């Protein structure tokens, strides 16, 4: 799903974000990426979503070579990815249904497909009864569930979540990760960036730890708990 070999990234302002990073994510995996802020987690996501290009090394996502990819091919790569943001990124002037439908419209889905698919997704995140509500009327947890539904609605192969629980009541954070696990069990690969250690400990998943631009640990959840 994701294959990174000896990838480095330095920004034009001289910041060294990643040094010689190599790691693979197989299809169907669930990976936590942890590290303090400024460790290079965001850069990792930017590289995977083709927002930045690596300076050196090899990088492929969903079989697409991101070093050689052409600009106009990027949108089509992104259609195979679902992105979940820390700040939810819901459009305040659209209700829940519209927010999810928006993602389908952009890839040219028909009205009929939208009417069928959006309620199904909202059912999955248990928000069917709130589909007419506006983001401001929802709790943080509910908003992020809408964000999840939107990320999933176009049936991506890979979900990338950047601190999805960062703006949510800690008690409800588990609920979001539970949902992500459930989605993962249905076959979607999940990469979740977080710095909440208690969350990572609770779910026994693979953990990739980044520190100052390098991968310093890559363990499955059981080993991490034992350590």
């Amino acid at each position, binding site marked *: 799903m994701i294959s990174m070999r000896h990838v480095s990234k330095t920004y034009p302002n001289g910041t060294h974000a990643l040094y010689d990073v190599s790691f693979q994510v197989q299809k169907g995996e669930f990976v936590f990426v942890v590290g303090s802020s400024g460790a290079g987690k*965001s850069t990792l*996501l*930017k590289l995977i*979503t*083709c*927002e*930045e290009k690596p300076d050196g090394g090899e990088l492929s996502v969903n079989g697409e070579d991101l070093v050689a990819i052409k*600009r*106009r091919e*990027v*949108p*089509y*790569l*992104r*259609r195979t*990815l679902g*992105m979940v*943001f820390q700040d939810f*990124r819901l*459009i305040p002037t659209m209700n829940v249904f519209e927010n999810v439908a*928006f*993602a389908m*419209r*952009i*890839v*040219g*889905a*028909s009205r009929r497909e939208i009417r069928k698919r959006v309620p199904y997704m909202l059912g999955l995140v248990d928000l069917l009864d709130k589909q007419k509500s506006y983001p401001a009327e929802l709790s943080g947890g509910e908003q992020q569930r809408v964000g999840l539904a*939107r990320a999933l609605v*176009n049936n991506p192969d890979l979900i990338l979540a*950047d601190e999805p629980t960062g703006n949510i009541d800690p008690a409800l954070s588990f609920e979001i990760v539970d949902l992500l696990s459930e989605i993962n069990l249905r076959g979607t690969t999940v990469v979740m960036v977080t710095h909440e250690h208690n969350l990572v400990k609770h779910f026994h998943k693979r953990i990739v730890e980044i520190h100052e631009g390098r991968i310093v640990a890559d363990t499955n959840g059981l080993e991490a708990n034992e350590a």
Partner: protein
Amino acid sequence: MRSLGYLIKEGLRNVWVNRTMTIASIAVLMSCLLLTGAAGLFSLNVNRAMGTLEGNNSIRVYVRQDVSSLDALRIGDEIRKLDNVESCEFVSKDEGMDEMRELLGEENASLLDGLEGDDNWLPDSFRISMKDLSQYDETAREIQAIDGVDSIYDYSDLANQLTRIDNIVTRVGLVIVIALSVVSLFIIANTIRVAMLSRRLEISIMKSVGATNGFIRVPFIVEGIVLGLVAGLVSSLLLDFIYYRVIDALGIDMLFRVINIHHYLLPMVLAFMLVGALFGALGGAISIGRFLKREGGAVVGW
């Protein structure tokens, strides 16, 4: 294609969300179109007027009222004898009346009803052209000296003046129109930029789910086109309205037959709207192009 309706709707929403800037850019684009139209109409009318003024270097010689047509013909022979006269064409009083009708146009020709035949007060005349215009003064004196000649009218002066005014108006108009075009493009581009900034979030979401740049562009280009269409429609109708007000106020239609733009109203409105839409689309394209380039792929913004 399916989403075209949706994209157009979004473009219209931009127009509304962005009211103040929208009105400003419509106003500037309108003044640009109005001035272009006004300069164009002025020029067309000047050309029409000159055509009516019997060419550039012809002179009209009027015979005294009390001279009979037979005597008038004899005067013509004397004029032809002059060295500098190239041609001399007799214009009878009846022909003069027909010319006058032509000059006044259909609407006003009825003023001349009842002044035909024996009641025709026009004198006989000659249409003369000279070989060498530099000897104009001398030749004119010689003609004036012939017995029975009443007066000489020289249209060349007027024609030259009209040409000069037309040239000035065209040149000044062109400069103003170019300046205003640049200004209106700039303002349209900025208006659409405001719409774009207010929709940053939407654009970032669009990018994150894989919208192509072309798709993201459409609503903003639609916005530009809508601005242009409105500006084109309003300014062409306004031009039509102002045109007839000015003509009435100045009484120009009594001097010669002005171009009746009512006959060309529909093509004119469509042409203005087309030009407006092109400008709007261009402004939108410039704006969104710069935005997408500057923000690059980074619009997703993790």
